């Protein structure tokens, strides 16, 4: 399987932020998205995940193959770590959460209410969710926010293991993750607002 993005244009807040984005990610490899703040990494990932519509262009395969880890984790503070994971697992028809707990070193915290975790512990839980989706393509938006060095290593291992099983990953980040895999600078794809002409009045709405 392969992730193919062909001249994709993504919009945010009614304006194009990126256009003509082209890349392919072969299974077993990872792609690292780079670019200054506000260039459109999050927007691109959300578009891949099917959370917002592309302005033009193609993405194959569809969202049903993708698992997306955003800035927000979507875990409930009142539920315990394992309860949160089990919920996501059930939802995706996965039965066993113990590997995920192990990979992200959460066994010790399994019984803790998620609300009582520290920032980094919360983050680990959020990442562990990906492992119970059973999806082939993993999309990460700044996954290592507030993770310490060991946890970053844990994360890198988990991703490598996933790649080893023929999965693939797209990671937007500002810092180095020690993940081999090619890198894509988004700078060049920045959308240039078309200069005003009479009859793009209609388009000027979009």
């Amino acid at each position, binding site marked *: 399987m392969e992730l193919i993005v062909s001249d994709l244009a993504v919009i945010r*807040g*009614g*304006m194009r932020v990126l256009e003509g984005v082209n890349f392919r990610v072969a299974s077993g490899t990872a792609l690292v998205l780079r670019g200054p703040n506000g260039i459109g990494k999050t927007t691109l990932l959300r578009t891949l995940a099917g959370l917002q519509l592309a302005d033009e262009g193609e993405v194959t395969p569809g969202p049903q193959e993708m698992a997306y880890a955003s800035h927000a984790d979507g875990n409930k503070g009142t539920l315990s770590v394992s309860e949160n994971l089990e919920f996501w697992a059930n939802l995706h028809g996965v039965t066993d959460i113990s590997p995920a707990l192990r990979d992200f070193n959460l066994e010790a915290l399994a019984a803790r209410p998620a609300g009582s975790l520290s920032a980094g512990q919360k983050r680990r839980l959020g990442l562990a969710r990906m492992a119970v989706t059973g999806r082939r393509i993993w999309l990460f938006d700044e996954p290592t926010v507030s993770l310490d060095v060991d946890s970053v290593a844990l994360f890198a291992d988990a991703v490598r293991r996933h790649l080893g099983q023929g999965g693939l990953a797209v990671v937007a980040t500002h810092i180095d993750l020690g993940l081999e895999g090619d890198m894509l600078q988004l700078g060049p794809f920045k959308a240039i*607002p078309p200069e005003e002409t*009479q009859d793009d009045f*209609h388009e*000027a709405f*979009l």
Partner: protein
Amino acid sequence: MSERLPKPKSLWEYANPRRFMAFSGFLLPFVAVGTVATLAIGLIWGFFFTPDDYRQGSTVKIIYIHVPSAMIAINAWLMMLVASLIWLIRRHHVSALAAKAAAPVGAAMTLIALATGAIWGQPMWGTWWAWDPRLTSFLVLFLFYLGYMALWTAIENDDTAAELTSVLCIVGSVFAVLSRYALHFWNQGLHQGSSVLRAGAVTGTDTEEKVSNVFFYPLMLSMIGFAGFFVLLILIRTRTEVRARRIRALQARERMA
């Protein structure tokens, strides 16, 4: 946007903002003149050149404002419904904006109908307000207008707002009709049924609660006048909305550049 445009191939092309602006700009003065004329004639005729009703006295003249505004109040919502459907199906921004523009007008008309009705009710029924189904369903209609407008103002992103309000408008219409029946079931009212458009009323042959011809022609005129007034307001407000929307779009461009 003043220079010539190619002739439209289909009616839908008028939904292109640019063509709409051109066309509406051309239409506006005619509508304005027509409206003022009919309204003036209808109201003046109605107020000064019709006899007082033997039963209701001069209060009957409220009908020249009351009935037309009530009529518009209902039809404004219908227009919003149609516009919303057009937006959802054919994605013409202008129609969404037209729906947005219609809401406050409709709400105002509802208020006028309620107010005039209340003023009329004081002499006729001896009370400002009675929980008559006709009246109450208008009150409920007003609530629907309120909710609709509140939703428009609450959402920043224009397209999202258009989508959501359209959905609300459609679902709301169903419930509005439901409520109307519910209300009629709930209470039998003192308010008279539709008689304006009954043949008997026009020919003056039917007996009770007829609106006889003397009152009928000026009433018709002022109804037409109100309709024109409504169209006029919608055109103006929609043009404003289009411009406002355009300004926001250009500002967004500015930011990105």
